[in-house]
């Protein structure tokens, strides 16, 4: 797969458009400069987490003797559930805390940006793709996109409104649904081929 396809996949799973409204509510009490700083900091932290999973995920999977088809099926099912949530439910408020507290790492970096779906996705791709550099550059490319969306989110929300953002998220959910189904089909295919 090309770097762009990988980056597009990671971008869809990270779901910055869907997460933007939640993140905006979380940091709305801070002044604008501070908001930008928080966004950048959290994006960087989640980037490190993603890279960590790229390199250590495989070690772990080998240790636990997890097969390719199991990984593919798991990732597909988890992502498909996430995609359905994106399509059929408006982003629920994970956090109704109104405390004016600096959201450090939790909940923006984890689990909003680097959630379980993204970690599985990265592990799967890291295992399939022999070239580490390719995955790493795809991840970095993704994060450039994520950062751009998050920083642009306040303007975007003003332009198309909250409903517009939700509609965009639903469409992204659809594409994510396709990607996850591809993983499920592939996992099933691999599994069937192992049968005698």
């Amino acid at each position: 797969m090309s770097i762009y396809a990988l980056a597009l996949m990671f971008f869809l799973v990270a779901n910055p458009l869907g997460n933007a409204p939640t993140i905006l509510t979380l940091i709305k009490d801070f002044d604008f400069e501070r908001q930008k700083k928080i966004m950048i900091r959290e994006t960087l932290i989640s980037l490190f987490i993603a890279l960590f999973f790229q390199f250590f995920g495989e070690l772990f999977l080998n240790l636990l003797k997890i097969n390719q088809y199991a990984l593919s099926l798991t990732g597909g099912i988890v992502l498909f559930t996430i995609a359905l949530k994106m399509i059929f439910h408006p982003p629920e408020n994970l956090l109704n805390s109104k405390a004016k507290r600096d959201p450090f790492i939790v909940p923006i970096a984890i689990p909003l940006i680097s959630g379980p779906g993204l970690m599985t996705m990265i592990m799967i791709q890291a295992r399939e793709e022999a070239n580490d550099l390719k995955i790493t550059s795809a991840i970095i490319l993704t994060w450039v996109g994520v950062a751009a969306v998050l920083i642009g989110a306040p303007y975007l929300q003003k332009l198309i409104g909250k409903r517009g953002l939700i509609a965009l998220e639903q469409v992204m959910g659809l594409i994510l649904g396709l990607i996850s189904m591809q993983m499920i089909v592939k996992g099933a295919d691999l599994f069937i081929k192992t049968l005698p």
Partner: protein
Amino acid sequence: MTLLYLTVVLFLIMDPIGNISSFLSLVADIPPQKQRSILLREMLIALAAMIAFYFLGEFILNVLETSMTTLRITSGIILFLVAIKILFPSVDSLRANLPVGEPFISPLAIPLIAGPSLLGTIMLFARLEPSHLSMLGAIVLSWSLAVLVLLFGARLQRLVGASGLMACERLMGLILVMLAIQRFLEGIQQFVKSCYA
């Protein structure tokens, strides 16, 4: 796929009959002359979104290298869930809590007319149907039908009543469920065949 098939499917998913009542309640306070121009504007925006997604869909699906099997299975599942929502409407649907005031883009153009299921189906067809001409023709045709239905929405509602409209919508939902199952099974069939190959 024939032009007729594509047009009918797109029309069913657009669900203009179901949208009549939400449209009428949205523009209830606006004089009829202006209602018509609002409707046309919103529908044109929806058409633009549909055509944009037609080309975008082809591009994205090519980049992601999605297979026909996946496309069929996924769109079958999504369409099924959407149709179930039409059959058994819930309180938290798109049509609940509509904002008051003149609609602009949201909610009438997107997501009521050009919702995720319609845009997704268009993307799917963009991959399945090689001919640009019949696909674009089907989009424009089904769109014009939807405009007609919405233009005469008030009269239609007076004719058959709100419950009649609802019954029509349910019937269309049922047809959509069948389409969804058919598509899902075609995907499974293709998958099984590819396993034996």
